[in-house]
């Protein structure tokens, strides 16, 4: 049991050690590292729970056929549009998008739409756009948003070309018995 925890959290303990080493050499910087780390962890714990609850509910309640029809391989422009909207109206850092992408994949969303979703989540979030307009002005924000939009589509398309069929199949998570 203890051994399992030690092994699972190996990386965490190593980095924690590194934080202590920093503290040893410079208590001032060390204290700052711990403060920022604690802030980061608290922020993650405050943002991430609803995301995972939604992932779980989505997994249980939404039938696979429904998702495949709208976001699957044959979903075309509509699928891309939905994937963009899903990412753009999300909240939270990019690392919170990965578990969502995983459940979407399991429900039969095409890989191209997953890349679109990840791209939109990373750089096209609407709340972020509003904040960007406030800070950097509408011209800067709108042109960056437009360029990002083109980029998200281009990256999704290119990624799809670069990966072989075998590599794509490996990405799909194994089916879970309900």
């Amino acid at each position, binding site marked *: 049991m203890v051994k399992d925890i030690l092994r699972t959290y190996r990386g965490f303990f190593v980095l924690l050690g590194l934080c202590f080493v920093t503290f040893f050499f410079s208590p001032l910087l060390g204290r700052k590292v*711990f403060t920022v780390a604690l802030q980061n962890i608290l922020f993650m714990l405050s943002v991430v729970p*609803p995301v995972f609850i939604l992932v779980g509910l989505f*997994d249980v309640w939404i039938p696979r056929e429904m998702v495949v029809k709208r976001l699957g391989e044959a979903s075309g422009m509509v699928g891309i549009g939905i994937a963009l909207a899903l990412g753009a109206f999300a909240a*939270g850092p990019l690392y919170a998008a990965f578990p969502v992408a995983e459940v979407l994949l399991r429900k039969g969303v095409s890989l191209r739409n997953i890349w679109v979703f990840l791209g939109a989540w990373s750089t096209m979030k609407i709340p972020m756009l509003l904040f960007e307009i406030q800070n950097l002005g509408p011209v*800067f924000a709108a*042109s960056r948003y437009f360029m990002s939009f083109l980029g998200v589509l281009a990256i999704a398309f290119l990624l799809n070309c670069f990966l072989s069929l075998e590599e794509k199949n490996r990405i799909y998570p194994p089916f879970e018995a309900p």
Partner: protein
Amino acid sequence: MGDVTTFVLYGLALSWLAFSFARDRKKAEQALRKAWKSFANILPAFLVVLLVLALVVVLLPEATIAAFLGEKSGFLGYLLASVVGAVTLVPGFVAFPMAKVLLDHGAGVAQMAVFISTLMMVGVVTLPLEIRYFGVKAAVWRNLLAYCYAFLIGYGVWIFVKVVR
């Protein structure tokens, strides 16, 4: 701004959960179990990412980043800016005010667009996490493509801003 969306997400999750419990208790419990399982699975990797972030942010303070992006930093500064943006992962509500300050102090529009874009789209720190979900090749290519494209974004924004002014 970020708080509002988090609030909405909580509302959405809790009302769906309540609805789920009312309709089918078993299914609701199953959903919660699945939620916990996927969270517990990824928690170790999350913690690693957050600690690396803390170390990077503290040991690479804002003043250093500002120096890289200064008016006279030239092409090397431009490149360094993109690297800094790619490695660190600052949330938007920190990055935008920071970019504004830097712009007010004479940093270039293109540099700022590249900086913000790499900040948001490229994450070297989160790469191990991404690899766990999508495999090495897909994760590395996605980040590489996003990194290269960030320069195009910089160029595009620079042109747009120039035309409008």
